[in-house]
Every structure is written in C-alpha cells, then in structure tokens.
C-alpha cells in the first residue's frame, strides 16, 4: 500500500507542493503563536486561521461534488453544521457533567446517578424550558460514539437524500433547489425549541474541552489549528486520490455528459451517491473541527445562504482544481473577516465615505459577478496562464 501511495505522489508532484506549503504555513503559525513561539500571532488570529482551514476542507468537498461531479449542491453546510452539532453534544454534555458533579460534590449527601442526570438536563435544557435529556443525547457521554456519529449522521442523511434524488434522476438546477430545500428544512427544524438541540440558542461553550480545563486557550487553539491542518492535508490527499484515478475520469464524465457515461455501462447513480456521501462526511468532519474553535453553533449557521457562499468560494477559487477551492475559501473568508472586522481602512471620496463594514458585501457580490462573467476558471485560472506562458 505504501508503495502505491509513494508512486502516486511521485506522479502528482502538486500534492507534495500543496502539503509542503501547508506544512510550512503550519510551522510558521506555530512558531509565531503565543503558546509555542514568539507570540506575534494572537490566539484569536490562530483560531481564525484554524477555522479558515476548516472552510478550505469543506471547499474541497464542494469542489469534488460540484467542480468534478457537476452536482451543484447548495446544502453542504447542513452536513458541516450537523458534524458540529454531533461533536458539540459531547463537548457540552461532558463539560456540564463535570461542572455539575463538581458543584454537587459538596452536597450533604453524595448525589445519585439520577440526580446528576437531572441536574445536567436542567443545566443544558433549562433555556428551552426542559429538564429531561432527549433521547438523541443518549450517546453524548461517549466521545468515541459521538465522533463516529460526526461521520455517520451526516453520511446517512446524505445517503438517503442522495439516493432518493439521484434515483429519480433529479439533476441540474432542480437538484440545487432541492438541496437548498433540504438545508432550509434542517435549519427550520433545529430552530424549534423541542428539536432536542436547544432551538435557536444552539450549543455553546464548545471552546472549553472537558478534561482539558487546565490548558490555556492559546495552547488549545494551536492544537486545533494543527488538527485542522492535518484534516485539510488528508482531505486534499483523498480528493486527489479520487480525481486522479479512473474514478475521477468517470465522475468528470458524468459532469460533462451524464447520459453518455450511462450508455457506456457505468452505474452513474452509484458514483454520484458515493461522491455525495463522501463529501458530506468531509464537510461534517470540517464542521466537527470548526465549531470547537468557534465556540458556539446555532441553526442560523446552516441557513441556505451559507451553502451558497460555499459555492461562491469554490467558483472564485476556480472549479475543477482542488487547490482552487482551497485558495477561494481561504481568500474570500479571510478577506471577509478582514473587511467586516473593521480593520480595513475606510476610503474618503470627498462627500462619499466608503465604510467597508457596509460596502464589503456589495463589493463581494459584484466581484463575484465579475469572476463568473470574465474569469470562469477563477483565481486558479491564473496558474494556467502562468503555465502556458512558461511552455511558450
């Protein structure tokens, strides 16, 4: 197996280049961090960078499903959010349990298991007027099971949805609208107080890892940053493994002419379903790493608009090239937080004053139109230009 991988890597040096750049970047951030280095990169910036890497990972998933397989899914943030919810359940439950047990330790009588459960329930669900722990939290005490659920729940949702949709040959725009409807339905469902996931309060306090209370956030943020980088590297490798093999040719064939691939004897639905489920799981893992860094998850995160932005990142970065998705996600999300964070200098145009917090979205929207119209290959297309220049 190792030999095969080595051969594959030798054949595609771009993977090594990407992984190399990612490693150097990771090292740079670690050295610059407050916890392990000289400290010119603040903890909040480390977190932002870690979150951006997670966005890059879901962008890779989006590129696989859209750029390579031609399924414009406008619902991948639903999987991202579900992944976050799954890990968030463990984080919140365990942390609440530790707090509750601590506070009950000094009670006159040692608490019974039932009393602890009740106290945890009140602590978590008091905000939505409940005290009982819903059935869907039955595995919340176990990290391994919740980690498995991070992949299983979104994977299953993607499987059922994809199976239904591909089987009845819903394609193109219709599929996009259907995926959008899916994520809207999920968001609306989670907004309810009796959904068992705290309604619009969402899950909070996720930045505190149970059992690691002693570790300062500056240190924790670096570990999560490294984890994000690792996940991105693995995700990149997996995506490359898929698209640079025969399977990649088939799915690109599906993108370009689905009917012809079907006539050639390939079971198109199975390929599509595989890609859809795989990318859903990638999105879910990205979400599971993202939300402990963000600290809070609520249903607004999976509103349809988020998934459309995902498509925007990939389109700006350049579809059909994995590194393009990474560039797009990193570029747009970093620029977004730079402009909306109020760090960008405002422009004084005589009587008109451009405040970027207000005008950034206008700029983003218009630049997006421009990219679609004039640079359909996105930022990644620049690399093609460089290549052709060199070969001349």
């Amino acid at each position: 197996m190792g030999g095969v991988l080595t051969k594959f890597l030798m054949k595609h040096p771009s993977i090594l280049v990407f992984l190399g750049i990612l490693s150097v970047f990771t090292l740079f951030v670690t050295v610059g961090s407050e916890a392990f280095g000289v400290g010119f990169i603040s903890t909040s910036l480390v977190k932002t960078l870690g979150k951006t890497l997670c966005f890059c990972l879901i962008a890779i998933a989006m590129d696989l499903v859209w750029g390579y397989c031609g399924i414009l899914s406008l619902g991948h943030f639903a999987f991202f959010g579900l992944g976050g919810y799954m890990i968030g359940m463990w984080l919140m439950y365990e942390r609440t349990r530790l707090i509750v047990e601590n506070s009950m330790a000094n009670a006159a009588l040692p608490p019974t298991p039932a009393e602890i459960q009740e106290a945890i329930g009140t602590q978590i669900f008091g905000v939505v007027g409940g005290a009982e722990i819903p059935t869907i939290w039955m595995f919340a005490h176990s990290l391994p099971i919740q980690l498995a659920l991070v992949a299983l729940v979104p994977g299953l949702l993607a499987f059922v949805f994809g199976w239904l949709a591909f089987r009845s040959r819903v394609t193109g725009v219709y599929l996009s609208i259907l995926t959008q409807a899916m994520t809207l339905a999920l968001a609306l469902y989670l907004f309810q107080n009796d959904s068992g996931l705290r309604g619009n309060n969402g899950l909070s306090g996720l930045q505190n890892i149970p059992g690691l209370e002693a570790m300062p956030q500056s240190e924790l943020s670096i570990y999560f940053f490294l984890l994000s980088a690792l996940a991105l590297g693995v995700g990149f490798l997996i995506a490359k493994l898929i698209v640079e093999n025969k399977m990649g040719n088939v799915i690109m064939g599906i993108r370009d002419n689905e009917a012809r691939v079907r006539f050639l004897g390939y079971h198109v639905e199975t390929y599509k379903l595989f890609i859809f489920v795989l990318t859903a799981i990638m999105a879910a893992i990205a979400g599971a790493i993202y939300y402990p860094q963000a600290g809070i998850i609520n249903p607004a995160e999976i509103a349809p608009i988020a998934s459309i932005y995902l498509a925007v990142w990939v389109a700006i970065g350049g579809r059909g090239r994995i590194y393009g998705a990474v560039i797009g996600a990193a570029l747009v999300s970093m620029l977004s937080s730079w402009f909306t964070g109020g760090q960008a200098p405002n422009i004084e145009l005589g009587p008109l004053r451009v405040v970027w917090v207000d005008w950034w979205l206008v700029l983003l929207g218009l630049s997006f139109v421009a990219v679609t119209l004039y640079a359909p290959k996105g930022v990644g297309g620049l690399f093609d230009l460089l290549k052709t220049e060199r070969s001349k």
Partner: protein
Amino acid sequence: MLRIFTILMAIFFAVTPIVGQEANDIVATKLSIAVEKNAPNIIKGSVKTASPIIAELVETDDPAAMRFLSLWQEKSLWYRKTDKRIFAVKEQEDGSFDLLDFNNLEVVANLPKKQIKQIKPNSGLRALIAESLVAFRLLNEDKQVRQEAVANLARSGKAQHLQPLRAALLIEQDQVLKNEMQRLETLLTVQFGETSQERVEAIKSTTDSLSVDTRANLNRIVATQIKLNSELPETANIARVISPGSTDFSVEQAYDLLIAADLAKPIPTVSERKQLLIDNIENGKVDGFTIHNLATEKNRDAAYLSLVADGKVPFWSPGLNAEILVAQYEFVEVFDEPDANVTTAAMAALDTIERKVAMSEFADVALDGLSLASIYFLAAIGLAITFGVMGVINMAHGEFIMMGAYTGYVVQQFITNYTVSIIVAVPLAFGVTFMAGVLMERLVIRHLYHRPLETLLATFGISVALQQLAKNIFGTQARPLTAPEWLDGALVINDVISISWIRIAIFGLSILFFVVLMVVLNKTRFGLETRAVTQNRRMAANMGINPNLINMLTFGLGSGIAGIAGVAIGLYAKVTSEMGGDYIVQSFMTVVVGGVGNIWGTLAGAVMIGFLQKGIEWFNPANTLAAQTYMIIFIIIFIQFRPRGIIALKGRAAGD
C-alpha cells in the same frame, strides 16, 4: 364642574318623564330615610359596609335612588360638615355651592366650599355601584348608555340582572341592541334561569352562536371537579367515573384527594426522604450508614428504613405505592351544576357548537391557505417567467420583490394620500424593476445563457450586492408600507371565519396577474415570440424574431411583476432589506413543484404549497416552524415521484 353639572342635568331629564311626581314624594322619603340612616357609612365608603346600603337603595326600585347611586359613583355627592347631611351640589359663579336635594334636585341651601366636603368612593366601590346600576341603565333613554350597560353585563352578568334585562328587552326599540340583549338574555338564562326547563330551552337556542363567550358560558356549566365518590351526597350530578393514572387525572392528584379526606397519610417523596436523611446526619453517618455510600437510591432507601425502624422519621416502605392505594377508591367527575338536565343539554349543545366551529375553522384554514397560495403565486409568478419560460435562475428575484416594496415606501414618503400613493407605486414599482431586470439581462445574464448553473451564482452575487445596498440606503430597521383605509380591517363572516381585506386584495391581484399573463403569453405577438424563442432560439431567429430583444423584454416582464408583488407583499408584511430572502426559496419550490415552463404549473404549485402549509399548521398550530419543515420534506419527497412537477411539459418543449 361644568361637566358634572351637565351629567346631573342629563340624568335629571332622563329620569323625570318616567317618574310620577306623586310616587316620587312617597318613595323619596324612603330614600331619604335610608340615606340618613346610613350617612356615616356612605361618607366612609368602604366596600364592605357599602354593599348592604347599595342593596337597600336598589330595592327601593326608585329612579331617584338610582340617580343617587349614579351621583355617588361619579363622586358628585357632598356632605355638609356641620350635620353630615348628604347633598348633590351645583357650583355657582362666585365659587359657592348650591346644595341640591337628591330626591328632586331642588336647591335647598347655598354654602361656601369650606363648609362642605366631597364624598370620594374608592374604585372598588365605584365598580360595585356600577354593577348594581347596570339594570337601571338598561332603561336609559340614551342609546349610548344602554349599549355600555349591555357591554357591562356581557362581562359580568349576575343572577339579579336577569329580570331587569328581560324588562328592558320588551321595550327596546333599537334592533341591533335588541339582538345583543336577546343573546345576553339567553346566556344569562342558561346560567341563572329559575327552572331547569327554562335553562334547557335557553341552552338549546345557543347552538346558533359560535361566539367565544357562548362557549365559555356553556363550558362554565359543564365545569367539573374530581371528587371521591364515597364523599358525595346522593344527589350529586356525576359526569363520569374516572380512574387515576389517566391523562387528566394523575395518581398523585388522586392520592392528594385521599389525604384530604383523611383516608391516607402522605408518602414521603424522594426529595423529602433525602432531606430527612440529611437532617439525621450524625458524625458523617446516617444511622450507621456512612455518607459516601449513600450515592445510590438503594442505599438511601436502606438508610431511611433503618431510620423508620428507629422511629425518627415518618413511615415509608418500598412497597408503599400510591397506585395500589388509590385503586381501592372510586373517583368521579362531578358537575358544579347540580341539575343533570341542564348539564346534559349543555354537553349536547357544546357538541353541536364544536362541530360547527370545527367546520368553520376548516373553512378558515382553507381561506388562509388560499391567501397564502396567492402570496406565493405573486412571489413566484415572475420567477416562473424568468426561470420557467427562459430557463434562467434568477437568485436576485427576491431582491426585485424588495425593490418593488421599497419603491412603494419611497412613493409614500412623497405622496401622503395612501390610496393615491398605492396607485402611483404599482406602475412605478413595475417600471423600476423592469428596468433593473432589463439591465441585468443585458449586462450579465445574456453572457451566461449556455451556462445555467452559473447564472445562479452570478445572480446570487447581484442579490448579495442589492441586499447590502438596500441596507446601506434604508437602514436595517423595517419600513412600513401603509395600506389605504379601505384595505384596513377584515371581512368577518362569523366568529371564527375572517379574512383581512389586504389578503383579499392580494388574492384578486394574483388572479389578475394570472389572467393577464395567460393572455400575454398565449394571445399576443410578444407571447408567441417568447414561446418561439423559448422552444428553439435559432429557429425563431431564422423566422425573423430578434431573440435578444425578446429575452430582454421577457426578463424585464418577469422582474417587473416581482416589483408589483413586492408592493403587495409590503402592504401586509414589513419592508426590510432581507424580505426577498424570505420568499426566494419558497418561490423556487413553487415553480419546481408546479412544473417548470408554464403559468398553470406555478398556480398549481402555489395552491399546493399554500394549502399544505396551512393544513399542517392546522394540525399543530403552536409550531409554524415545524409546519414549514414538514412541508419542505414533503416537497423533497414529492419531487422524487414527479421530478418535472405537477404539470410537466411534454415533447420537445420539455427540453433537456
């Protein structure tokens, strides 16, 4: 002062014609005697001491007594400080007061203000007087006063009001008021009628009314309490036998009844037992049990039992089960109303009314569904043209709706007459969004006809930009778009069914749109050319049609309709920069569910989604979020079975 005087005069004139002078003299003495006797208490004016006085005055059945009560209530009675005699007063120009005899309002004396004092009953007492005066006011000449009296009775009718109400009913001339009195009379008879026969008759006649207070009234009659059967007298009007542990009667409630009847002792609850254990901690032990072992229910029970054995705590054993104890007794629901005939009739009447209410509610839900369907239709119809007929996905469609609504808002800033402003706003909104649509088609969409998925993204970019632009211009708070007065209010069909005029107008507007679009697309040259370009662009071009022009105009038409829809939607919802987003997903689903490419499909889709959503909400009214969730899931499943929508195009037009 002048006001009080006016009221005095009004009452005076109101009363005089009914009162015979002779009778007045005789009864007046009665009144005087009563007042004189109770003067200290009237002046003191506490609710407790006053109520027998009021009863006594009412019993005299004398208009002058009623007038006295009115004056009392209106703080228009004064008393002379020297002898505590009570008078009505009239202020003179020089600041002194004429004292009037409350029997006939004749001037008895004139005193400066210093020598008299106003009687000020508190609000509780004034309410008490008002209530006792209601019956009297039913006979007042002023219709306004009678109406107030009837409204007052509707709120707090009592048994003693029944007779005066009937008397008033006989002579009431105003038909509307008479009907209201009749209804009230029935309701009061239902509650306070003298014979069981009379009440049953009244109950039977209530079944025509669906109003909430009729139902509340009947429900009051069939109100029940749960009691132990053995505790009841023979004559009790028993509704049904009820067993503990059912949904509306828990074992705990049953056990509490047993405790109240001294048939059982309270069982210490888990938390009480825990508290008792804590109370008995000595040196880190509870009766020999070390504390850290008490972390399970089982050990705690053992410790408690050992405390019981020592007699330190109330008795309890694991076998002590409230369920078994309560099973030995029979519990029944007893009507508060002792008359079985009345309760049976009331139950039957409630049944009938509830059936009627359910039917009305169904009709109401259907109307709601229709109105929601017409809103979805309005929002989606423009999209049906751009997306359905041209195959272009316009994510900025919602923002065109928003633009239309803001156009309406801006027009209202300049034209304050709401009717005129709406008349101006509708064509203007069409114009603005038509231009925006044409501009967008020329600049963006034209270059993307061969890449449909990318129009989706490009128009999304425009949508984001437009939304933020609107936010920058108009701010984030919601702007009102006020409807003209003739659209205010609602069409009320009965107590359950009502629909606001705005919704009816939106319904009318969507019908109009539907018809106009059908005509435009099917009967005009432009429609013919549009359809030709839609089906085969090149062939159409060969026939001399300019496809670029047609596409531009069609896109403009779809956008313009979105603008008009925006004005209509803005009238009943608030105008915000995000309002477009609320409709875009629903609009897409409407078009997709209905079937792309024809107006009939959009109509069918809107009707289906509208009715579906209201229908689901009907089953679970508290939770509109759940209704939307289930509706979307239903649509997702529906698309599996009809991927081309309800009305699918067949043949070449279906494309692909």
